[in-house]
C-alpha cells in the first residue's frame, strides 16, 4: 500500500471512530441534552418528577391571569403551557420577558407542587421562533386570515404560512 493510501485510511479511521464515539455519547445523554420537556412528555410519566425541570410549550390563549403584587413590585402570574395535546398549569412570581404573551413559545423552569397540581416556576424564558418579518407583513397576514398559530410543537411556535 502506498503511504498516501495508508494515511487516507488512517484519517478516515480517526474520523469514523470519533464520530461513532460521539454518536454513542450523545445518544446516551439524550435526556440531559434536551433543553426542555413538552407537556405530553410529562403526561406520559406515571408520577410527576420531584426534581427541578424545564417545561416548554405555548402559553395557552386565555390562560394568563395576574394575581396580587409583592411589595417589591413582582406580580404573581398564572398561566398554562400547552403543546396542543396536554396542558400544565404554571405559577410564577416575577417579571415576564418582553416576548411573553399568550400563544407565544415559552420555557419555564421549576418544580411541581407535591400534589402534582401545577409547576412553581422560578425562571420564565421566552422562546423565539424562526419567523422574522416586518410588523406590516404580520398585520397583513392576520387581516387576510392567513396567520396560523400552529400550537402543536413548542419548537415551531406561531408559524404564519405564506
Amino acid at each position: 500500500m502506498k503511504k498516501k493510501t495508508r494515511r487516507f485510511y488512517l484519517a478516515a479511521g480517526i474520523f469514523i471512530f470519533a464520530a461513532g464515539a460521539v454518536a454513542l455519547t450523545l445518544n446516551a445523554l439524550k435526556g440531559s441534552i434536551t433543553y426542555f420537556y413538552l407537556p405530553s412528555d410529562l403526561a406520559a410519566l406515571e408520577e410527576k418528577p420531584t426534581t427541578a425541570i424545564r417545561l416548554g410549550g405555548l402559553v395557552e390563549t386565555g390562560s394568563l391571569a395576574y394575581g396580587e403584587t409583592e411589595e417589591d413590585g413582582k406580580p404573581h402570574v398564572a398561566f398554562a403551557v400547552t403543546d396542543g395535546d396536554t396542558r400544565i398549569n404554571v405559577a410564577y412570581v416575577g417579571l415576564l420577558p418582553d416576548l411573553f404573551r399568550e400563544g407565544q413559545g415559552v420555557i419555564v423552569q421549576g418544580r411541581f407542587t407535591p400534589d402534582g397540581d401545577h409547576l412553581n416556576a422560578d425562571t420564565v424564558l421566552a422562546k423565539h421562533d424562526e419567523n422574522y418579518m416586518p410588523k406590516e407583513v404580520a398585520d397583513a397576514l392576520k387581516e387576510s386570515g392567513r396567520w396560523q398559530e400552529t400550537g402543536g410543537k413548542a419548537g415551531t411556535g406561531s408559524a404564519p404560512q405564506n
Partner: protein
Amino acid sequence: MPSLYEFANPVRFERWARPAIPWLVGATTLLLVAGLYYALFNSPADYQQGDSVRIMYVHVPAAWMALFCYSLIAVSSAVGFIWKHPLADVAAKETAPIGAAFTFLALFTGSIWGKPMWGAWWAWDARLTSVLILFFLYLGYMAIWRTFEDKTRAARLAAILAMVGFVNIPIIKFSVDWWNSLHQPASVFRAGGPTIHSSMLPPLFLMAGAYMTFFAAALLQSMRNELMARRLARIDSGEKKTAASLVES
C-alpha cells in the same frame, strides 16, 4: 487549464495572492458599508423583536463563518495530513484565529440578543453549548500549533484534532432539530425556503458577503506572513549551519 498543483506552489501562491488582497479589502469595505447601512437604517423592525432584530445581521453571518472556517480547517488538515500538500497546513493554521474570532462574535452577539428576547444571557441548550465547544476546539487547535517547535509534528497533531473536531459541525447545524432547544431552528438554509421576510434578506446576505471577503483577505495575508516567516527561519538555520561548518573546518 491550470491544475490544482499550480496553486500549491508557494511562489505561485505569492504571485496571485498578493494582487488579490487589495481587491478583497476593497470588496469588504463596499459590502460592509452597504450591509451595515441596510442592517441599521434601511430594513424594517421585526414584528415582535422590534429593533433588536438588527443584531441578527451581525450574529447570523458570524455563526455561518464560524462553521465555514472550521470546515475549511478540517478539509485543509485532511489534505495536508494525507497528501502532504505544502500550503494546506498553512491554510488550516491561519484560518483558525479568524474562525475563532467569528465564533466569539457569534457567541457575544447571541448573548446580547438573548437577554432582551429570551430573558437570559446564556442557556446550556444544545446549540449554544455545541458552539461554545467549537470555540474551545479553535483554541485547542491554535494551542497545539504553539506547543510544538517542530512544524511537521505540530501540523500532524493539529490535523488530527481538526478532523476529530469536525464531528461537532453537523451537531451544531442539526442541534436545533435533534433536541428541544431554546435557540430557534434554522431560518435561511432549511427545507421549504427561508422564514425570514424578503425585506430582511438583503442586509443579511450583504453582511455575509462582507465577512466572506474579509475572511479571504485576512487568510491570504496571514498565509503570506507565515510563508515568509518560514522562509526566514530556513535561511536563518541555513546560515547557522554554514557558520557551524566553517568553524568545524
